[in-house]
Each structure stands twice: as structure tokens, then as C-alpha cells.
């Protein structure tokens, strides 16, 4: 050992940090999470350990992938440093849960947290325009998802404006790119009616970006209604739960967004037929009505004539019943005094009186011989 190499404490810390920066500027360590605590909602402290060793870590909450729990296996990247007061630690840059059990647990914890915040609440869901006029498509331009979505979309409907945001849908940059694309679509000069985020199926790792807190929150916060379609078979990603609507595949997303032109055309054809039938029926109904009105009119007039006729007949009969000439024809005669007054009783007669007789066909003058009262 060189006797001249004696450090002051601060010098040693500085020297060691310098050496670390050259030798191990950035390390990635995988281990079991222990002694995890968050201070002032900002600072994060934890240890990673295996059976024999333990290493201290320090970082901010912004580096967290979501809620973490003791015992999880995580992969942490960062810069190793010796702090002048608190000793050695690794300054955390990223934390990634690894191992199936840990990933699932981490996802469950995040899901529970976001659920509690109400991000997946059914009442938050907005209806998507059907069909939309302008949509933002966030997916990898080279992917089958991109091709499938556009193919089905064009087969079903035309004239839709599609703003494509080309992003990586897996790997480290995916989360940042997707979040940025959601923000860009929301801030676009021509705001789309709907935002479609899609990718095909893949392993749990491939789909991880769509279950991160950042992407899920960005989807939930989007002012433009969202449709998230991540092709997979078992698990639903958190971004899909936060979306206004989810679809099972990119093709399914296109189907949900647009009606089938063929079906719409057939419906239009049916409507057109109905319309024609309705018009024809209207005219037919009115013609029928006119015919029945004509009948009523004739019947009305006929009835009026019949009524008048029968009244006339009654009057005629009454007239004839009171007609004095009818009685004269039957053999009766009217006796009048010479002054023309009709004599109806014997008390107005006396023998020798001259009276005028009126018969059916003429008159006569007679002298009364005797008067007998009956």
C-alpha cells in the first residue's frame, strides 16, 4: 500500500464517485424488493437483496412503474453513488418488475389503485361517434395491426380522415411515445372525433406498455374519446379498461367504429321501398275515401228526396180527408140559407123555408116541408 495515498473523508467520497462514474456509470441490478418506503410523497428508498447481499437504492416517485410491494422481483437501473453522509446507494433511473409472479402482482396493485381512483368507472365512458369523420390512429406503422385496421375500415366505410401517429408499441420507448402521441392528437389543429390505440397480440412483455400507469392515465385523460384494441386472448390491458370503448383486435376496432356500407345500402333500399309503398298507399286510401264520400253524397240527396216525398204524401192524404167535395161525391149535400150561411142543425129550419143545396156536380133550390128533430 502506498503510504502517500491518505484521503480526507470528502476527498475519498469524491474520488470514489469519480471512479464509479468511469467504471460503472450505469448499472442494472435485479433482486427482491425490501424496506420499501416513500418519503414526503416524493422520495423513494428501498433495498434490493438476494440470499446473501443487500444494496440500497434511492430515487423519486416518478421513476416508479406503479405501486410496488415488498418481495417483488424488480430490475432497477441507475447510477451507483457514495453519498457524503448516508453512504452507498444506487440513484434510481428506472424500475421494471420482472418475473411472472411479480409482473402480475404489480399489475394487480396498479389496477386496484387506478380502479380506486375511478379511472375505469362505467359512468366515465363516452359514446364514440358512429361513424367518426376524423380519427387519430396510434400504432406502429409497420405493423399488421395498422394494415388490418385500415383494410377493414376502408372495406366498410369511406371518406374517413385518418391521422396516423407512428409509435413503437413495445420496448422501452413505447410508453413515452404512446403518451406523447395521445397528447399530440388531443392538441391537434383538427381535433379527431376518436382516438384509436391498437396493436396485435403478443406476450405479456410485449403488451406491457398498455398496462403502465402513464399510458393508462393518458388514455383516461384524453379529451378525445378513446378506443383501445390490444389483440390478446386472456388479460385485458389497463389502457383498455380506461378507454371509452375497447375492441378485441385491430380489425374489431374498425368494425366497431364504422357501419358496413353494404348493410347500410340494403337498409336504404328497404327504406326507399317502404317510402314508395307508403306514397302509393296514401293515394289509394284517399281514393277510397273519395268513393265513400261520393256514396254518402248520393245517399244524402236521395234521403232528402224520399223524406220530402213521404211528407208530401202525408199532406196529400190529410188534404184529401178534409176535402168537402169528397163527401159530396159520396152523396152528402151542403144546405145553405139564401144568404149563403151553412145550416148544420134542424133548429135553423122551418117549414116553408127556402134553402140552397150544394151537391157534387151542382146546386139546387128547395123548400122545407117538415122539420123533425131526431
Amino acid at each position: 500500500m502506498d503510504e502517500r495515498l491518505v484521503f480526507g473523508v470528502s476527498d475519498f467520497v469524491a474520488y470514489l464517485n469519480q471512479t464509479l462514474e468511469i467504471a460503472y456509470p450505469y448499472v442494472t441490478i435485479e433482486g427482491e424488493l425490501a424496506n420499501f418506503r416513500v418519503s414526503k410523497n416524493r422520495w423513494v428508498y428501498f433495498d434490493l437483496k438476494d440470499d446473501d447481499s443487500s444494496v440500497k437504492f434511492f430515487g423519486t416517485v416518478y421513476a416508479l412503474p406503479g405501486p410496488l410491494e415488498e418481495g417483488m422481483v424488480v430490475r432497477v437501473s441507475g447510477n451507483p453513488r457514495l453519498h457524503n453522509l448516508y453512504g452507498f446507494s444506487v440513484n434510481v433511473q428506472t424500475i421494471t418488475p420482472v418475473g411472472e409472479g411479480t409482473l402480475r402482482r404489480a399489475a394487480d396493485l396498479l389496477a386496484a389503485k387506478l380502479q380506486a381512483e375511478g379511472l375505469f368507472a362505467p359512468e366515465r365512458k363516452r359514446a364514440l361517434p358512429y361513424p367518426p369523420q376524423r380519427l387519430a390512429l396510434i400504432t406502429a406503422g409497420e405493423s399488421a395491426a395498422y394494415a388490418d385496421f385500415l383494410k377493414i375500415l376502408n372495406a366498410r366505410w369511406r371518406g374517413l380522415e385518418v391521422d396516423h401517429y407512428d409509435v413503437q408499441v413495445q420496448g422501452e420507448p413505447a410508453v413515452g411515445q404512446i403518451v406523447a402521441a395521445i397528447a399530440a392528437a388531443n392538441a391537434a389543429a383538427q381535433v379527431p372525433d376518436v382516438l384509436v390505440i391498437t396493436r396485435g397480440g403478443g406476450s405479456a412483455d410485449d403488451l406491457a406498455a398498455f398496462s403502465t400507469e402513464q399510458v393508462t392515465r393518458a388514455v383516461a385523460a384524453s379529451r378525445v374519446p378513446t378506443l383501445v384494441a390490444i389483440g390478446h386472448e386472456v388479460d385485458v390491458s389497463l389502457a383498455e379498461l380506461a378507454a371509452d370503448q375497447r375492441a378485441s383486435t385491430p380489425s374489431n376496432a374498425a368494425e366497431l367504429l364504422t357501419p358496413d356500407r353494404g348493410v347500410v345500402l340494403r337498409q336504404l333500399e328497404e327504406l326507399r321501398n317502404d317510402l314508395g309503398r307508403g306514397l302509393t298507399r296514401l293515394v289509394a286510401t284517399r281514393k277510397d275515401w273519395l268513393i265513400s264520400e261520393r256514396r254518402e253524397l248520393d245517399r244524402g240527396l236521395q234521403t232528402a228526396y224520399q223524406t220530402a216525398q213521404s211528407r208530401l204524401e202525408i199532406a196529400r192524404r190529410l188534404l184529401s180527408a178534409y176535402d168537402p167535395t169528397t163527401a159530396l161525391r159520396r152523396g152528402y149535400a151542403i144546405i145553405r140559407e139564401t144568404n149563403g150561411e151553412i145550416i148544420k142543425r134542424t133548429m135553423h129550419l122551418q117549414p116553408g123555408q127556402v134553402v140552397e143545396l150544394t151537391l157534387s156536380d151542382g146546386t139546387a133550390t128547395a123548400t122545407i116541408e117538415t122539420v123533425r128533430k131526431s
Partner: protein
Amino acid sequence: MTKKEAFKYRDKAAELENLVAQLQDPDIQIDEATKLHTAGLKLIAELETYLKQAEVEVRRHVAHE
């Protein structure tokens, strides 16, 4: 069918209905009934002409679809 024509049809149809109702009055005078009948026949002729035209129009529409 323009709005004006539709209105005219409705008015004439109402007039005809009113006229038929008047004819059903048992105390109506014959000359009044005859007058109403004549007016009714005239209205029916007008409405018939209108409907025939409408029918031709409808056929033309339906055929052109």
C-alpha cells in the same frame, strides 16, 4: 307535392265532408239538398283529378328509384 297543393287538398276534402254532413240533416229542403249535391259532385271531381295526377306522380317517383 308542394305545400300549397297539400293545403288545397285538405281544404277541399274538409269542405266535402262538411257538405255531406249537411245533407244528412233530416229537415233539409230539397232545393238546398240539390244545391249541396251539385256542389259535392263538383268537389269530388276536383279531388279525383288531383288524386289521379298524384297517382301518376307517385308511379313516376317509384319507377325512377
